[in-house]
């Protein structure tokens, strides 16, 4: 897209109102004018505001190329990676609205506290549990096996929190594990080397786990890596049901 030399973008940015306000989720939108550039990303816009308009703006980023997953924010009402979102694709009438991820406490302005998100990975038993030591040879996993294919479908998650921010059930049930944690659990349930299957299925069962998923598919639709997160949760429903009927849950 060609951009006029004097084109300006009006950007509404969420500003939290001090430490007390942060805890209460309070704040307001503040509007900035940012010059338009070709191939400009939303992260470029936020960086411009911090460097040229208000150095107190708080936000988080690292790699700038869609690898680290740290720059996710809500842009025009949808959670996205700001580094991989071109302004051309999302600006409506030359306007942008940038807010912190939903369903997570705000540390400051656009930066959220991801602790609860990653604690839930641990609660869903997202840690690999193997039996081999480093002195033993590699385990053989057939690349074409169904289990390995299922792992491939979900293994590329980088923990950006976009799915978690987009999930209605997380909003309704703060203890709900969320799509990313359960996707991680699903990759391990399908890992033939893993030995904690029963404990993991027990960890993801019930009202705070896979059985609370409404299959709205917001996570699948919004995932920047297009991972089939809803299908992973459905897989956990199937496996927990099998375990339940066998008396193993």
């Amino acid at each position, binding site marked *: 897209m060609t951009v006029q030399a004097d084109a300006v973008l009006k950007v509404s940015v969420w500003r939290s109102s001090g430490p007390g306000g942060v805890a209460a989720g309070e704040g307001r939108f503040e509007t900035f004018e940012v010059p338009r550039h070709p191939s400009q990303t939303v992260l470029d816009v936020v960086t411009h505001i911090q460097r040229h308009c208000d150095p107190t703006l708080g936000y988080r980023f690292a790699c700038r190329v869609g690898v680290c997953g740290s720059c996710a924010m809500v842009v025009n009402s949808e959670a996205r990676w700001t580094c991989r979102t071109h302004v051309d694709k999302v600006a409506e009438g030359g306007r942008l609205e940038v807010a912190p991820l939903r369903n997570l406490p705000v540390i400051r302005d656009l930066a959220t506290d991801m602790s609860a998100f990653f604690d839930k990975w641990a609660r869903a038993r997202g840690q690999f549990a193997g039996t081999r030591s480093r002195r033993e040879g590699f385990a053989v996993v057939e690349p074409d096996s169904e289990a390995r294919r299922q792992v491939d479908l979900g293994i590329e998650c980088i923990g950006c929190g976009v799915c978690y921010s987009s999930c209605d*059930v997380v909003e*309704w*049930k703060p203890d709900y594990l969320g799509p990313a944690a359960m996707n991680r659990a699903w990759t391990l349930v399908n890992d033939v080397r893993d030995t904690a299957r029963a404990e993991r299925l*027990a960890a993801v*069962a*019930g*009202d*705070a*786990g896979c*059985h*609370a998923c409404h299959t709205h598919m917001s996570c699948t639709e919004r995932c920047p890596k297009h991972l089939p997160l809803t299908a992973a949760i459905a897989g956990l*429903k199937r496996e*927990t*049901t099998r375990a*339940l009927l066998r008396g193993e*849950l």
Partner: protein
Amino acid sequence: MTPRAQAWLWLAQRLSAVVLAFAVVVHLATMVYAVRSGLSAGEILDRTRGNLPWLLFYSSFVVAIAVHLPIGLRNVLAEVLGWRGPLLEIATAILSAGLLVWGLRAAWAVYAPGAA
């Protein structure tokens, strides 16, 4: 309630949904068919009194509702109102028992001769 019990509830709601999908279609189709030449209480009772298949059909319909509805309502109340804990379980269990008792009573009333 343990996650295991919650998983049983989830399974019970899915299985009851299968029964309801069938029962609702039969119920609606019967209504549409039955009202073609006008509908009266007498016509309904003529069809249902002493008719064991209809009693079994509506009894299974009632059981499926008594299982399905309280579990769904329990989820709605927990998600929309944030109501959790033993009181919610007790309230939805009472609702389930009520649906079962009054539903079966209604099915029996249109089956048993002279009961209505």
